[in-house]
């Protein structure tokens, strides 16, 4: 049987090339790996090696030919023992020397993508339908956000031995912000692991452990330092389920303080919400109250996907009532209406929820009833709750500590444009951190962050009050 040698594609984009030189002549023996000819592409001249063994029976495209299309037959190879007469049949069966068009010769030319309906094109989240927040009417217990986070981790670690905590100073130091206080004593050094100060490495290590089915909780002292780990969070954790066709999930929680603390300047004061919320394959949550912290962290630990859990240092010491129930878990993907009102919708997350509620109090004194939505989850974003609220209030102000450009507020603006345009009585207004790196000076820092009066002013503006 004869074998055709075809004009090869030598780069992802090559469609044709020049046959510069034949290294073998008709009648030569060819072993696999031998250089048979040289081909010039638009980028370089490259040697073509034989894949099959045999005798070079006939050269179909002489050297010096330009513009030879990929997949054209350039020579015929004879098997051991065959003689040249076998070629006559081969030639009649082979394409004419004038090379066939590459597209036709490629048996599986990519098909034009099927037309995607607009609604489908906007399918940005493959999340399952989110169950509503469970009704809870049992006893409550007052605790700080710090205690809520610790109890969420401890309860889940008691239940599931695959869950472990790692990070800088989480064990002997009892947590840089004392979140993991007492956990080393209870769970031991195998499950509460102090790491070196090497975020890139330990984040990668934790993702590897998650591939094998363990459920790491990785504490970043602050999310500013997670920039070093970004590659593993995005490339290794968020994409692997997809790249593996559903085989390899990464059940992992990355948690820690996010956003501005107080007077720690630009490198320690950034909100990363929109960075992570941008990426498919991640879930992103950001709690405000101790109840949020406990219920969402337990949900994050139980979730089979990588979850980014954005805390806030200033909130750690604030106290709230929390359901006194180890099975109290909040659904990721559901926002909470913290205060109902019909005049204007205000969305916020993390520490800004408290600021927005203060603003709502002031607005109420002026006859404006604000509906304050605690987003809780930024990916998936509970667009249903936001849109339904806007349908009622016809006005919306978004609040976040982060920068305005491509922020969470920008995303909500797009959602409102697409889903509630006809319900708006005023343009959406964003209240954001000022578009500068965080300054150190106390007065400048205060100016850089959203304040109660900024929210009040924005709400009054959209109410034309």
């Amino acid at each position, binding site marked *: 049987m004869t074998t055709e040698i*075809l004009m090869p594609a030598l780069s992802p984009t090559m469609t044709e090339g020049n046959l510069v030189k034949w290294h073998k002549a008709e009648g030569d023996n060819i072993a696999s790996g031998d250089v048979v000819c040289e081909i010039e592409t638009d980028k370089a001249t490259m040697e073509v090696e034989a*894949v099959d063994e045999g005798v070079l029976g006939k050269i179909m495209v002489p050297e010096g030919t330009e513009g030879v299309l990929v997949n054209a037959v350039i020579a015929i190879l004879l098997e051991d023992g065959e003689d040249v007469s076998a070629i006559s049949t081969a030639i009649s069966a082979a394409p004419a020397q004038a090379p066939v068009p590459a597209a036709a010769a490629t048996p599986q030319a990519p098909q034009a993508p099927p037309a995607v309906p607009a609604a489908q094109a906007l399918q940005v989240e493959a999340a399952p339908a989110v169950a509503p927040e469970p009704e809870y009417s049992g006893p409550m217990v007052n605790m700080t956000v710090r205690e809520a986070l610790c109890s969420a981790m401890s309860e889940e670690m008691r239940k599931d031995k695959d869950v472990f905590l790692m990070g800088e100073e989480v064990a002997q130091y009892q947590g840089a912000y004392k979140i993991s206080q007492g956990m080393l004593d209870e769970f031991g050094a195998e499950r509460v692991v102090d790491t*070196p100060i090497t975020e*890139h490495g*330990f984040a990668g290590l934790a993702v590897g452990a998650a*591939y*094998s089915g363990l459920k790491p909780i990785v504490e970043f002292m602050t999310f500013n330092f997670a920039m070093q780990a970004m*590659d593993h969070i995005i490339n290794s954790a968020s994409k692997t389920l997809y790249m*593996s066709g559903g085989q390899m*999930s990464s059940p992992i929680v990355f948690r820690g303080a996010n956003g501005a603390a107080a007077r720690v300047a630009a490198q320690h004061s950034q909100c990363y919400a929109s960075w992570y919320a941008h990426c498919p394959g991640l879930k992103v949550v950001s709690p405000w109250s101790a109840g949020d912290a406990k219920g969402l962290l337990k949900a994050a630990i139980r979730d089979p996907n990588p979850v980014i859990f954005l805390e806030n240092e200033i909130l750690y010491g604030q106290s709230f009532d929390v359901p006194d129930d180890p099975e109290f878990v909040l659904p990721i993907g559901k926002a909470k209406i913290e205060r109902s009102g019909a005049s204007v919708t205000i969305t916020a997350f993390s520490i800004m929820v408290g600021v927005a509620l203060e603003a709502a109090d002031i607005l109420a004194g002026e006859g404006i009833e604000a509906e304050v939505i605690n987003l809780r989850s930024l990916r998936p974003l509970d667009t249903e709750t936001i849109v339904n609220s806007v349908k009622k209030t016809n006005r919306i102000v978004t609040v976040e500590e982060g920068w305005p450009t491509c922020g969470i507020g920008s995303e909500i603006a797009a959602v409102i444009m697409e889903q509630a345009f006809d319900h708006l009585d005023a343009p959406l207004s964003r209240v954001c951190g000022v578009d500068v790196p965080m300054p150190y000076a106390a007065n400048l820092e205060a100016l850089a962050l959203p304040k109660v009066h900024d929210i009040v002013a924005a709400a009054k503006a959209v109410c034309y009050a």
Partner: protein
Amino acid sequence: MVNKPAQKTTKRKSRTKSHSKSTDNPSNEQLLTYYHEMLKIRRFEEKAGQLYGMGLIGGFCHLYIGQEAVIVGMMAATEKQDSLITSYRDHGHMLASGMDPKGVMAELTGREGGYSKGKGGSMHMFSREKNFYGGHGIVGAQVSLGTGLAFAHKYRGDNGVCQAYFGDGAANQGQVYESFNMASLWSLPVVFVIENNRYGMGTSVERHSAMTEFDKRGDAHAIPGLKVNGMDVVEVRKAADLAISHCRAGKGPYILDMETYRYRGHSMSDPAKYRSKEEVSKVRKESDPIDTLRERIIAAGAADDAQLREIDKTIKAVVTEAADFAQKSPEPDPSELYTDVLSQSLTHA
């Protein structure tokens, strides 16, 4: 250079230890198994190169031709519970792990029958069943991830060892040293297998590394290392036994510096202008891992020429079957675009 390299002061006790007796004189059967596995990779890769040339494989495609002895020798010392992770030059590792050539080739052609249902491609395949954890496209990432797999072996106490493969180019990545540190600090069972094929893409080791003795790269973290002739599968097997038993005994990580060579370009579109043709043909002629083994098999009387030709034929059939499957398997259904972004299970199994 003012600073003395750290290796002067680090103990290297494992380097002088005698090798495991079972592999000093490999049996005829072992030799033939090595031959079969190495030839399977070579023929598979040649076929992949051919399909790439026909436009059936797209994007990046990094062939393993020339380096076959490394993975085959390592796998010979591997136990069922062990795990494996590597970079984007991963076809050989998958075949040697026992993954089906049909599924691998169909992933290369981006078809439904591929290991990742066509969504990963050449650089991203996985098999839970074979404990093969990819297939990673970011240089060096697999070293930290593999250290995490080793962490999990220790956490579970399953007596497993992780093999993390990376090239001489990746050996300069910062996260490699972060991982060395943690692996040694926590005595994690991981063999760091440096496949030193002399070039990080187009930059030779002398041009990218201040210190080219990769077996000593663990000295700063008290990790023993061994330089190995990565073109000789029997030598690789001996080193693998040594390193893996060190890890399995709970003594922490081990580094193997496999001196090997890649015949083809970094990827398919590499014209290889950074090295001479003479250099490539000299290696092929003098130390090709498959030719060398073939001679050894014949000299040992393990098989004659005709028997080896039979093996060649069997492999050719397997590779042809894989290539046929990879062309006949349909493209993934358009609905697959939206699946596998998030795991839908409510609690992780």
